[in-house]
């Protein structure tokens, strides 16, 4: 029975892929209707985190640049969303290109020092950016604090509720999270396929080549400057999209939501799921959101030592998970299990090259 062996690109392989995609789609749709409304809201947050983690993965996993400042990009996306929707009265879907563009620009800007600064130094600078960003959102100059809501946060009163087509499809205004779920899942699918195709494209190969050997990549004709700026920018843009989703889904932005711990959470999610794997982002996002929800209701009293669910507890669990994963599963869940799965259960063999004409087949 196992392993099932297929040839890459054969009709059998394609059929299997179609079946797999159909199953995934059915599950995605089923989740929205099985879970109660408030749970769907959490799942929405999970999707947003998954997009952000995929963005981080692009820089950290595939690009090999250890950057820890991605909470700033999420925050920028969220603040741009709040500003455009509240002050300039944009429709929510029109915000997306702008928040992505803003984050892309910010990310590209951060990539400029990254061109010269590597390794540890880049870690330091990106941590500093993540720490600086929330206080930047609070400063009074240029009216930034008014636009972002400053220390108090800002309510986005444009609600994403079903209109026109959404209503025609049977969504009701009393269950907006379920409606948003489908919009978000559509975006997640688009982003996932975009990243997958990017990694298989010339640009993606260049990103990985730079990670593996920068000098070698440069010698092979990769434009380091352009490629690094592009990687950072794309990664930031994905985080910006995630920020927009988070802001619109919650209906509220505040700088406290984009502190350094958010960047750590993204890193934890990425490492749990598997660095430089596509599916890892989803597992990581699931673990993060699940642990945070679970730890909200925890209150353990060890007598000497009290743990409550206010935040320290989830941080403690994240820390312990991160230690365990780095010890026993350094490549993450997907990174460790996928090779075994592809060997034992479902094997894709490369297509055999055609034999030269003047050779006769042996045997």
């Amino acid at each position, binding site marked *: 029975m196992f392993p099932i062996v297929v040839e890459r690109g054969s009709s059998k392989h394609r059929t299997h892929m179609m079946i797999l995609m159909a199953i995934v789609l059915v599950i995605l749709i089923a989740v929205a209707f099985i879970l109660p409304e408030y749970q769907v809201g959490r799942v929405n947050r999970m999707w947003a985190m998954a997009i952000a983690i995929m963005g981080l993965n692009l820089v*950290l996993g595939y690009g090999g640049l*250890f950057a*820890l400042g991605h909470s700033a990009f999420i925050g920028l996306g969220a603040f741009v969303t709040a500003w455009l929707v509240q002050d300039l009265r944009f429709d929510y879907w029109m915000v997306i290109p702008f928040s992505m563009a803003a984050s892309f620009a910010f990310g590209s800007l951060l990539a400029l*020092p990254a061109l*010269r*600064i*590597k*390794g*540890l*130094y880049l*870690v*330091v*600078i990106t*941590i*500093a*950016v993540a*720490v*600086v960003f929330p*206080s*930047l959102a*609070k*400063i*009074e100059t240029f009216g930034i604090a008014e636009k972002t809501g400053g220390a108090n946060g800002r309510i986005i009163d444009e609600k994403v509720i079903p209109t026109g087509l959404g209503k025609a499809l049977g969504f009701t205004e009393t269950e907006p999270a379920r409606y948003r779920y489908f919009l978000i899942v559509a975006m997640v699918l688009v982003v996932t396929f975009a990243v997958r195709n990017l990694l298989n494209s010339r640009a993606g190969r260049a990103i990985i080549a730079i990670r593996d*050997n920068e*000098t*070698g990549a440069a010698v092979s004709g990769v434009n380091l400057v352009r490629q690094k700026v592009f990687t950072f920018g794309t990664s930031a843009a994905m985080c910006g999209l995630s920020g927009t989703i988070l802001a619109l889904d919650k209906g509220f932005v505040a700088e406290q939501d984009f502190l*350094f*711990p958010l960047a*750590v959470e993204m*890193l*934890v999610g990425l*490492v749990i799921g598997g*660095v430089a794997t596509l599916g890892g982002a989803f597992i990581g996002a699931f673990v993060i959101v699940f642990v945070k929800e679970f730890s909200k209701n925890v209150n353990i009293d060890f007598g*000497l*030592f*009290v*743990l*409550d669910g206010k*935040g*320290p*507890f989830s*941080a*403690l669990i*994240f*820390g*312990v998970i*991160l*230690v365990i994963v*780095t*010890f026993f599963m*350094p490549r993450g869940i997907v990174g460790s299990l996928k090779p075994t799965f592809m060997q034992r259960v479902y094997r894709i063999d490369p297509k055999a090259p055609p034999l030269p004409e003047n050779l006769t087949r042996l045997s």
Partner: protein
Amino acid sequence: MTLLIQRLLDGLFNGSIYAALAVAIAISHRATGRVNLAQGEIGLFGGYLALAMASPAASFVAGAALFSNLPGHPFHLWISTLLAVIVAAVLAVALQRALMRDFDESTPQRALNRSIALLICVSAVISSQWGTRGRIFGELFPSGSNDFVSVFGARLRYTTIGAWVVVIIACGLVTLFLSKTKAGLSFRALTDNRASSVLVGIQPKKLMAIGWGISGALAALAASLAASMSLLDSSLMFRTLIYSLAAVTLGGFDSLRGAVIGGIIVAQAQTLIPGYLGLPTEMSIVAALIVLITVLVFRPWGLFGQRPVERV
């Protein structure tokens, strides 16, 4: 002019703390080749221990009751600080042995991940144990309104002088250890050439633990000094860590002298740039970041570091 001198002198106090933590980071980096992002939190744990030891058992400080059976409790603040420094060193060694021992040249990301895990774990333990609000630590040096030396009309406070004296003594001891003892010699050899020093019989495991111990002690000292000036709160050392990382990066990661000078530069940038540009105090970290990026773009290996040479 007086204002300039006053700002320079005010910056000096922060400079001493950044210098202490920066030296701690540099030492553990020399020992393991990895930056320890949890350095500040280990120090902060020491700071809270000092507070617990110096508080009477009936106070609201968690852990104070633990030490109430020891003779002479509550201790004088200086004694409890020294004890806490020792405990922090032991804790750092234990953490190094438990979590960071499987050092591997090929996995820098994994070591960083683990130090981040340590950072959030220790931070979570501290904030769940001692809460997030600031606590009065007490005075390590006289800090009344008249306790200052006048320098060209500006006030050089005793706390600043005292902090620098402590930091210089601590750094002097570390330098003595590195230059006069056998362990210090092998420590320097290890930094210089890891592969060769292992071949001549130096045990990196022992030295890595020693490095972490020294850096844990220095970090606890930095936390106590910082807390004696303001309040002890759970985010105190994370803020300091950012500035100290900037300082140690400026100094070039391995150089102790560079770390101290980097600490002074960062602290001065933090006071002077927002002061003269009229920016709010929250922007002081931006000033540090700007100095950091500027230096790194022109000297990516820091002011005192060695230029890395890579063989292709």
